């Protein structure tokens, strides 16, 4: 057998990379995003100027994903960070990576880019080996160039012409093992400078030549419609270009934004009516608990049967409907030309949105382009997709003119799909030694995703004539789960089983809110663990550690407890006017992503029922930490947002509409009430898979708060929010307070 030069190079390649110290093999299969789009040039292009363009199907939502992905690419390609350009979600340019959600971005796109880069690195080395006429194992890649031992070097840009990336990625290519590690470093985020100086940073900031402004006209919330409007009069208003009607869909296009707003007010002046069935209660958690449900097992850990003498503990926990509450109302810019449409959108899923818009507009998907541009933070499925459809329909009426359409504040509050109300009922059986011998977890919830993939998933799709039917709500299967997410405890409990009671019927429109069911399930499990620990007379942290076998979980728990000074936390004071307490909680997100523990100190004013949080310590293990400060930012933000959900928030309803129409009717946490300080410890795991951090802290933070309040007051609150009203009612049960607390 004669070995050709190429074969030699290929063999040498295997040898040289296999010797790499940190260079872990990447597995036998391509990661899912790369398997779906295996062509290397869909992910990476090397320019003759040495600039490297990386393409991701994920979107920047303010979570810092751009910077983290650029860090990954720069490190793996052994090229300066500044030589990387990143193109994010765009149906005309980037791979289809579904939606940017579920803390999956680093896991999906980060892993795909690592593997694509490993392939490109091998091809760059091969091209240099050809040029220098030497074996590939002599070639070293660093600083954006290939280097030979004799001192010759060639920049990547000069190899670009000889490099063909129109090939499929191969699985199992090793990661870069040499050179300085760009991962694990707090590189400043590339999106921040424009955001702190008033630069153009958002879809809301787009100004295209000839752009018109539009507003959509709707009733106050889902299930309502505006009554007949005086369209002829509005069309005569100054600056009004067109009133757009398609069935019940109604929008107005004007030359100037304020004129569009004035026309909107005029179009709404005729009032509105409810078209759907009345909403039966001001708080819908009991409705969700009672509606017919489809029951499905979510876990069964097996184990010995419960001894007859076991003591039984039961507790019921609940949360109301919650709002995403983006500070900037949703917005899109659309341009209709050549019988097609381009939509600039802050949707989390440009490809699914394209499918839905194509169906709505009766266009081939190729005639619809969706380009992600940042918007205000979304925290899940807010108005982003709906407003994109609104803008596209408005733009269709004025071809050739870009149309910018932003929702009003009351439209975002009134129409965004909510996070579902949920109820969890827990049962534990304790043996004679206070050990847990049985565990039941039952959770009731609506679906946690109605993200649009068809026209019926868009508000406008239900308004056009004939209307599209909303898709049937479905549960998300475990192990990720929707309402059941994190219902399976991480603790090694015997005789433990869980049931998800999936409630198909939706009394109000709901969809994905950050963490889906995890926040409720972790709140319930971690509150209940404290209740059992109290029953057993055990320290809450020691009690958790006794049931935790996963070493990474144990380290996260210990790190948070140590940094907080849990062992020295002092005696609680629940006798006087102010209760002081400490709380602890832990979860591994979805039981397959980031580990996060939260320790919290609280002071509760017994007279006002107000909670102050002087100090929070969190520890997190997100696998290999690409940008630790980015992880800290996500964890801190998750804690503060979760404190807002858990202490203040609850969407209210009247029979005819959602009553939480603005920030006065739906208050969120403001500066005076945020914690005194928050410390986040990141445990870096170089070489381990990226796990994503966006949704790791909400569950533990809300449970740590409830546990701290229980410690401070000597009483357990199980229904969110732990509002001043509920706390006062719990401390001094009076008829007036009790009635309010039920609301």
């Amino acid at each position: 057998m004669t070995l050709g030069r190429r074969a030699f190079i290929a063999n040498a390649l295997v040898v040289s990379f296999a010797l790499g110290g940190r260079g872990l093999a990447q597995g036998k299969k391509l990661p899912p995003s790369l398997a779906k789009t295996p062509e290397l040039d869909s992910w990476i292009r090397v320019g003759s100027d040495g600039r490297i363009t990386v393409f991701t199907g994920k979107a920047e939502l303010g979570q810092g994903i751009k910077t983290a992905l650029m860090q990954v690419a720069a490190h793996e390609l052994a090229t300066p960070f500044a030589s990387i350009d990143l193109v994010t979600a765009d149906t005309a340019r980037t791979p289809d990576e579904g939606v940017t959600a579920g803390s999956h971005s680093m896991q999906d796109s980060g892993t795909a880019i690592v593997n694509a880069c490993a392939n490109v690195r091998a091809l760059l080395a091969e091209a240099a080996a050809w040029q220098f006429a030497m074996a590939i194992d002599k070639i070293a890649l660093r600083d954006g160039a290939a280097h030979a031992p004799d001192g010759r070097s060639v920049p990547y840009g000069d190899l670009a012409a000889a490099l063909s990336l129109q090939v499929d990625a191969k699985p199992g290519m090793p990661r870069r093992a040499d050179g300085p590690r760009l991962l694990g470093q707090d590189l400043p985020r590339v999106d921040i400078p424009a955001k702190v100086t008033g630069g153009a940073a958002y879809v809301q900031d787009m100004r295209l030549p000839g752009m018109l402004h539009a507003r959509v006209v709707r009733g106050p919330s889902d299930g309502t419609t505006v009554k007949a409007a005086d369209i002829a009069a509005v069309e005569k208003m100054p600056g009004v270009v067109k009133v757009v009607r398609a069935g019940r869909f109604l929008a107005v296009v004007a030359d100037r934004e304020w004129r569009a707003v004035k026309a909107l007010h005029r179009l709404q002046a005729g009032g509105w009516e409810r078209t759907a069935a009345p909403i039966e209660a001001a708080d819908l958690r009991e409705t969700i608990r009672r509606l017919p449900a489809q029951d499905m097992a979510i876990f069964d850990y097996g184990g010995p049967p419960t001894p007859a003498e076991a003591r039984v503990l039961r507790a019921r926990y609940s949360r109301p409907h919650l709002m995403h509450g983006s500070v900037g109302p949703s917005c899109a810019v659309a341009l209709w030309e050549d019988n097609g449409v381009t939509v600039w959108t802050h949707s989390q899923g440009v490809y699914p949105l394209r499918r839905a818009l194509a169906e709505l507009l009766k266009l081939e998907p190729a005639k619809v382009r969706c380009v992600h541009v940042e918007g205000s933070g979304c925290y899940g499925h807010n108005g982003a997709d709906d407003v994109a459809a609104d803008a596209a329909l408005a733009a269709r009426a004025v071809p050739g003119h870009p149309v910018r359409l932003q929702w009003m504040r009351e439209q975002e509050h009134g129409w965004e799909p909510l996070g579902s109300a949920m109820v969890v009922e827990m049962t534990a059986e304790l043996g004679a030694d206070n050990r847990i011998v049985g565990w039941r977890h039952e959770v009731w919830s609506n679906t946690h995703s109605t993200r649009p993939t068809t026209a019926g998933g868009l508000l406008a799709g239900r308004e056009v004539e004939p209307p599209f039917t909303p898709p049937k709500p479905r549960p998300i299967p475990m192990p990720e789960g929707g309402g059941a997410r994190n219902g399976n405890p991480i603790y090694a409990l015997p005789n433990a089983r869980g049931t998800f009671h999936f409630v198909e019927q939706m009394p109000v429109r709901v969809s994905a809110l950050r963490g889906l069911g995890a926040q409720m399930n972790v709140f319930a499990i971690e509150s209940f663990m404290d209740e059992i620990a109290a029953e057993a007379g055990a320290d809450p942290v020691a009690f958790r550690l006794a049931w935790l076998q996963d070493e990474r979980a144990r380290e996260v728990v210990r790190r948070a407890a140590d940094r907080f000074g849990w062992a020295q936390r002092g005696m609680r004071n629940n006798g006087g006017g102010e209760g002081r307490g400490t709380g602890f909680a832990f979860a591994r997100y979805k039981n397959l992503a980031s580990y996060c523990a939260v320790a919290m100190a609280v002071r509760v004013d017994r007279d006002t029922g107000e909670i102050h949080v002087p100090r929070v310590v969190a520890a997190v293990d997100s696998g290999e930490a690409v940008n630790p400060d980015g992880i800290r930012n996500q964890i801190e933000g998750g804690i503060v947002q979760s404190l807002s959900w858990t202490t203040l928030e609850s969407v209210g309803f009247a029979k005819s509409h959602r009553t939480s129409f603005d920030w006065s009717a739906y208050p969120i946490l403001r500066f005076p009430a945020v914690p005194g300080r928050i410390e986040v410890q990141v445990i870096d795991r170089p070489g381990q898979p990226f796990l994503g951090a966006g949704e790791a802290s909400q569950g533990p933070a809300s449970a740590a708060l409830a546990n701290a309040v229980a410690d401070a007051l000597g009483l357990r609150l199980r229904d969110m929010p732990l509002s001043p009203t509920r706390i006062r009612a719990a401390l001094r049960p009076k008829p007036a307070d009790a009635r309010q607390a039920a609301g």
Partner: protein
Amino acid sequence: MITLTVNGQMHEVEVDPDTPLLYVLRNDLELNGAKFGCGLGQCGACTVLLDDKPVFSCLVPAAALGTRKIRTIEGLPAALPAAFETEQAAQCGYCIAGMIVRAQALLERNPRPTEQEVRAHLAPSLCRCGTHMRILRAVRRAAEAMGGGVRDVAEQTP
């Protein structure tokens, strides 16, 4: 025709007299900093300085301003934006321009506020991402850069 003085420059704009200042800043003067958040004065995303005081530009009719001095984030000195960048004090960042403008007003009036005063002063501005701790750190850093400093800090500097 309306005349406005923004960031030290006089502008003449042709808008309906009832147009709120926010829309003039964004659409006529093409300044991105002030954002539409609520149109109700509840969130602070649209905050600008009017004669050195923070106001909700979504509520102020542009025609009512005469020769009064308007400042937006685009016209502020670098100390606060630089401190926000150093502290990486943003997630989505939609609220940040309003935060910076509001903080500027405080530090000009009181270069050495207490942390409690900072928190009370920033209360009208909402952040939904939960970036508050970083925003407080950035204001602290900027106060020092401007020759003052925040007193009675709850958080130890790491």
